[in-house]
């Protein structure tokens, strides 16, 4: 924490928030101006903006992990998820807003992996904001052409007999991968199973953790 000095206080006498005491950039200047204008014009309020930030901060991969673990342990839910993943996810109590979600199930026969080649569409309303690599030129360019090489960079090697299905998130749908349930987890509770489900396993660039690693 380079800015964590007790003598480094703002004019109000409070410490600066981390990253608030760097020189103002042009784009930050624009953000402040746009935000103030939107509030003055009645488009939004400061409270609404804070609420939206809190809502986005609250979304994280553990929400998706809970959905996956329930799909592993509740056949009726798995069925509902396959039919309408948005409705099934909302029914579990997750506020995914207007997002239209499709769940892609991995089996021994097929492995799903999600990319957005045109921008960086991601099921953010369930999993939170995407990792930086998901938005990178390398991931967006290569995944549709050489998914197995991309997977290998993430440490995932699949047999030829497993079909890799790449999903290019080009339009209105968002995707969450339901990885295959790890062997050796018979009788586990959904809560314990959820701890094995990683973010990358729900994008398709990873596999769930092994039960030994719990």
């Amino acid at each position, binding site marked *: 924490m380079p800015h964590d000095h007790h003598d480094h206080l703002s004019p109000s006498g409070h410490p600066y928030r981390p*990253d608030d005491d760097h020189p*103002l950039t042009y784009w930050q*200047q624009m953000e402040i101006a746009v935000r103030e204008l939107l509030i003055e014009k009645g488009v*939004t309020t400061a409270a609404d903006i804070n609420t939206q*930030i809190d809502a986005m901060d609250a979304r994280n991969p553990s929400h998706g992990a809970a959905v996956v673990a329930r799909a592993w342990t509740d056949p009726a839910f798995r069925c509902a998820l396959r039919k309408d993943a948005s409705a099934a996810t909302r029914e579990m109590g997750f506020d995914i807003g207007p997002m239209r979600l499709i769940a892609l199930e991995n089996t021994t026969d097929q492995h799903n992996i999600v990319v957005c080649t045109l*921008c960086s569409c991601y099921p953010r309303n369930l999993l939170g904001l995407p990792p930086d690599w998901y938005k990178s030129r390398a991931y967006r360019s290569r995944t549709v052409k050489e998914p197995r090489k991309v997977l290998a960079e993430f440490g995932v090697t699949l047999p030829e007999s497993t079909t890799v299905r790449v999903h290019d998130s080009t339009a209105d749908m968002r995707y969450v991968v339901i990885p295959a349930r790890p062997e050796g987890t018979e009788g586990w509770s959904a809560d314990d199973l959820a701890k094995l489900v990683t973010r990358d396993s729900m994008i398709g660039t990873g596999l769930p953790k092994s039960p030994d690693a719990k």
Partner: protein
Amino acid sequence: MTEDNTFDGRRWHDMGGTAAGPIPTDQHDFSLWEKRVDALMIIASSKGHFTVDGLRRVLEDMGEDAFETMTYYERWIASVNQNLIEAGVYTTAELAQRMTEVAARGATYGEAASA
């Protein structure tokens, strides 16, 4: 990308299948101003002032140079602003004056953000 320099109509953001290096592994957390940009986009679009396709259209038209030299949320605020001006939510003159006022408040984000 074509081998020669003849433009075939493929735009820079349309990256699927082009050659690229290893997937980068570095990761950073978002700062407050970036989260605010994200929130402004969600709020302004949910109120019907523009759409996610409007956001993307401006990002695409900003070109490859912007993709390489600006951060993700720097590009987003530029696009959000462009869309809001096009939608008539405020004028360029209003933005211009406000940005000047903002800069006059102080040299850091923390100072400038406290009206």
